[in-house]
């Protein structure tokens, strides 16, 4: 049973995020190890495994990036364990520039506002990428999965950048 089936939703990039948390809570309750406190060791073990699977499935499904990556893995493209590098110079230059900007943000007159401008720019880029990703994942085109994989690879850099911006935001507002 894959994660989509576990959550009783269609195997698709589009997920109804208003329903997902409810299904999660329901599955959580059904598989909670406490429910099997008086059960056999075997039952406890099965519940524990099921419960862990529910948690893992939820965390994969709720984020578009991990959901897309999982969807491709169901189609036989494993991105999680690949170690290959990318060499798209224009894309990497942009990543370098953004990272330099973040590293030097303290020198700005108003670091917090400079940070939120940078964040908005990257969020916009993420939004565009997710729209393209959705198109490729739904497409029947021959190379659509490969194109989707390329977008996922790029998105990983953007998500990492957003995480670092959040950390910086925390450290700037924390005084």
């Amino acid at each position, binding site marked *: 049973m894959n994660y989509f089936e576990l959550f009783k939703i269609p195997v698709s990039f589009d997920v109804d995020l208003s329903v997902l948390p409810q299904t999660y809570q329901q599955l959580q309750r059904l598989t909670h190890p406490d429910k099997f406190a008086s059960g056999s060791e075997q039952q406890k073990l099965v519940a524990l495994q099921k419960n862990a699977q529910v948690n893992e499935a939820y965390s994969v499904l709720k984020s578009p990036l991990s959901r897309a990556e999982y969807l491709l893995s169901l189609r036989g493209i494993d991105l999680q364990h690949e170690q290959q590098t990318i060499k798209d110079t224009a894309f990497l230059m942009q990543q370098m520039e953004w990272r330099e900007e973040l590293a030097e943000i303290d020198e700005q007159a108003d670091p917090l506002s400079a940070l939120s401008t940078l964040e908005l720019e990257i969020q916009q880029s993420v939004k565009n990428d997710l729209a393209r990703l959705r198109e490729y994942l739904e497409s029947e085109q021959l190379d659509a999965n490969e194109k989707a994989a390329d977008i996922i690879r790029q998105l*990983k850099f953007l998500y990492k950048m957003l995480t670092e911006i959040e950390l910086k935001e925390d450290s700037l507002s924390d005084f």
Partner: protein
Amino acid sequence: MAYSEKVIDHYENPRNVGGFDKNDPSVATGMVGAPACGDVMKLQLKIDADGIIEDAKFKTYGCGSAIASSSLVTEWVKGKSIDEATAISNMDIAEELALPPVKIHCSILAEDAIKAAVEDYKSRQTK
């Protein structure tokens, strides 16, 4: 996870950080990124008329192992011919820095950065 002493040394005192003017004809630039961790690496080589690497600089945004790997290769490539530099493999880097299996991709990044820079150099030669 504990970093090896060599990784910490390169991380705390990185060698050859920075860059050269990319419009200088003797400068070759290699840019690579690892989707697995979102690390980005820029390696620049200054190559003389005989194809010997005179100097090298790097800029890396990533974890300690990625920074140490790139710092190490800037030391290694100096004085080498471009063919010798291309022969450096990620296993040499991983072994020297005692990288754990989960950090092998950092050494792959550094190896690919050398190859990308050499490719850049060669494409400039044929122009």
